[in-house]
Structures are given as structure tokens and as C-alpha cells.
């Protein structure tokens, strides 16, 4: 049987580089806490974007931070 079939989903995630302890701590959170964490992240990313725009005004219309976060090529 190929290794992928044998290994658990947790193992596959770990091998990919995902920090399982973050998932465990996420599981301990309430749904509201998870949504607040996401909202905080979006707020933080917005601040980073503003800072980036000061450094690179020509890029201000290109939401490159978003594309990087989504894993798409810039």
C-alpha cells in the first residue's frame, strides 16, 4: 500500500509542514474565539497592507498581500 494510504491525515499534515499543535489549540477554542482570531488576522493584514503601501505606493492598487496569503502567484 502506498505510504499516503497508510499514514494518518494528521501525519500527512505534519509532513506537509502544518503545525499540529496550532490545530489542537484551535480545537480547544470556541467558535466565537476562532472567528475573533480570524477578524484580528484580517485587521492585522490590513495594517500590514497600509505599511506596505507607504513603502511601495505604486503597488497600492495591487492587493499582493492577499494573493500571497492565498498562495496565488503575484
Amino acid at each position, binding site marked *: 500500500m502506498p505510504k499516503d494510504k497508510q499514514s494518518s491525515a*494528521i501525519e500527512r499534515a505534519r509532513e*506537509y509542514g*502544518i503545525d499540529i499543535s496550532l*490545530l489542537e489549540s484551535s480545537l480547544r477554542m470556541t467558535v466565537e474565539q476562532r*472567528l475573533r482570531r*480570524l477578524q484580528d488576522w484580517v485587521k492585522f493584514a490590513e495594517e500590514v497592507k497600509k505599511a506596505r503601501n507607504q513603502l511601495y505606493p505604486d503597488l497600492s492598487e495591487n492587493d499582493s498581500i492577499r494573493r500571497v*496569503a492565498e498562495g496565488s502567484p503575484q
Partner: protein
Amino acid sequence: MTQFEELLKALLNEGVEFVVIGGLAANIHGVTVPTYDIHICYNRSPENLQRLARALHPLNPTLRGAPKDLPFRADEATLKAGLNFTFETRLGDIDILGEVGGVGFYKEAEEASSEVSMFGLKVRVMSINALIKSKKFAGRKKDEEMILQLEAMKEMQEKKK
């Protein structure tokens, strides 16, 4: 900046029938991949299209990526004529889908969802299994990590039982 709670409230206050899907649903399940917008699958019944249009109207929706001066009204007729829309609103970005690839239309999405209470709201959220299906169906490289996280999350939850 997308205000998740406010956008959900705007839809629920008008009684819109929808299921939260995509990255936000995955985050609600515990995934740690950030998302910047809300994706929903909505019921395309005439009554629900009216509710959706009423909910969207005060949010000043425009089509994301379209020229800013392009005339657009997210009314019932427009929603009926299309299926999937990507909007920018004053509360942030929202994608509304009539059909979720790999899952189906609202009926199937609703069947593959459960009700979650948050911030005093009752929201239907797509199940981990259906999210994995839809992400695999989309076949996008960028979803690789999310799929692995969802699968790991599912296994962790099963082990807890």
C-alpha cells in the same frame, strides 16, 4: 476590511437562507488558514432572492473586479439572472454562490451543514466532509494546505469521540 459578524448579521436580519462555505466555514471548524471574505451558498427560491436583495441593498454592493463606474444593482432580477456573484460591500467582500462545485445547490449544501451559534446568531455552516469535497473538486493548488488541515481536523475530532 471584511467584518464577518456584521455581514452575517445583515443577511440573517433579513432572514436570508444560506450556508457558510469556503474559508470562513473552514475557520469556524478550526482551520488556521486565514481568509479575507465570506462565501455563502444561498437558496435561489424567489422569496429568498427578495430577502437577499433586501439584505444586500444597504451594503452598497458592487461587482468585485468590475470598473467602479459600471452600473449595477443587486436586485432580485439581477440575482435571478445569475448564479454566482462576487461582491464588494461596505462591510467587506462576499461571494454568493448558487451552486458549490462537488456538493450541489443550496438543498445539498444545507443537508451537508449544521447550525452553529455564535455572537447570538444561528448560522448554518458546511460540514468538514463537504468542505473537503468542494475543495478537492476545485482542484486548486492554493487549497492544498486547507484540505490537509481539514482532514487532520476531522481525524482529531474522530479520535476525541
